[in-house]
């Protein structure tokens, strides 16, 4: 019945990657991925919130009245997001400014609600926390991959360090949200192909 920890990891990071396989959390993937630092902080913020909200919801799963469970989930998620926001404002002023409204918007990130509904609601606390944590890590990895291309091509930098050694002209389009659409589309295409191939070879 209960899943092995290794399965939780491989499922969340790869097989059911929230962005690439479940197509969740797309809005923030489009919005914050033009700089790697922003993506990293956003990803870690989301990982923290998903892990802790999954843990809390799982702990309370037998006490939460079924009819109001969504409201309770939103309440718990919102509380953790506000904690992250306060923490960033106090300790990482620059990044908090750069991320602006997107930190608050973690509340509406479908990944967290998805993990709460699909997993934490019916699984034991520790597993739920790991599930939330690795769902967040999977999201962070995808964000960083997108940001790597966007920051490199758009600004000629990686994590703010100039790596534009040959001095190519940076692509303004990469800085703008449409570029994230293209990149996410390409990534989804690649991963879907890989999964389709895997299935085909198994069928043989």
């Amino acid at each position: 019945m209960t899943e092995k920890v290794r399965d939780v990891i491989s499922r969340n990071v790869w097989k059911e990657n929230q962005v690439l396989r479940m197509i969740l959390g797309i809005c923030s993937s489009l919005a914050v991925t033009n700089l790697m630092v922003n993506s990293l902080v956003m990803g870690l913020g989301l990982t923290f919130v998903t892990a802790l909200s999954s843990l809390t919801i799982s702990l309370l799963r037998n006490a939460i009245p079924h009819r109001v469970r969504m409201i309770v989930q939103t309440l718990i998620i919102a509380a953790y997001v506000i904690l992250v926001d306060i923490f960033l404002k106090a300790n990482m002023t620059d990044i908090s400014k750069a991320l602006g409204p997107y930190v608050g918007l973690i509340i509406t990130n479908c990944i967290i609600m998805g993990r709460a509904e699909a997993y934490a609601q019916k699984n034991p606390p520790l597993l739920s926390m790991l599930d939330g944590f690795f769902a967040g890590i999977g999201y962070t990895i995808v964000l960083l991959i997108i940001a790597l291309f966007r920051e490199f091509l758009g600004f000629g930098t990686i994590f703010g360090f100039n790596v534009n050694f040959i001095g190519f002209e940076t692509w303004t389009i990469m800085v703008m949200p449409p570029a994230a659409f293209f990149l996410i589309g390409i990534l989804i295409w690649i991963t879907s192909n890989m999964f389709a191939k895997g299935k085909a070879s198994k069928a043989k």
Partner: protein
Amino acid sequence: MKKGRIYTIVFMLIISAVFTFLLAGANSLFLPKIQENARLADMRAVLYVFNLSQDGSADEVLQRFEQNIRQTTISGIDLYEYSSADGQPEAYAIPFTGRGLWGSISGYLGVLAKLDQMIGLVFTDQSETPGLGGRIDELAFREQFRNIAITANTTLTYGQTDGSQIDAITGATLTSNSVMRIINQVLDTTVSKLGVTGND
């Protein structure tokens, strides 16, 4: 598991109370630090407008700030005044807030006390598109507004004007135009108000 109505209400009340309490606690714990950060950012912004070094620790910034800069009110405008060693006002940093693309843009605009030169521009608060309009925060954009000669009826525009070249941000036309409109408003209303007392 079926649960009654009373249970649901009591459960909601308790869980709301617990989380509200938690957040209130975290907020009051971090509030002093957040306010201090905001004050420090403000001081750095004013130092930048006056073209003074804004680097260093919080204490160094505070010391540099208090040495020459004081808050004052001139013809009804609250502003920061930079005075030389003998107490003569040399320049002003005028706070402004205006309409940007997504939200308001606030900051400081610096002018010489003689009101014939704009010496700097800085933004303290803006919610423009990150990576596009948000780039008004970058030095390359802000530094363009240093040492621009102004007269009573100057209207700044992008491109070449009177020997100074100001470039807009590619892909962020609306934000760029908003910034220019705000600057011209400040120059037009506030600065000319300052000028009235200057002539007394």
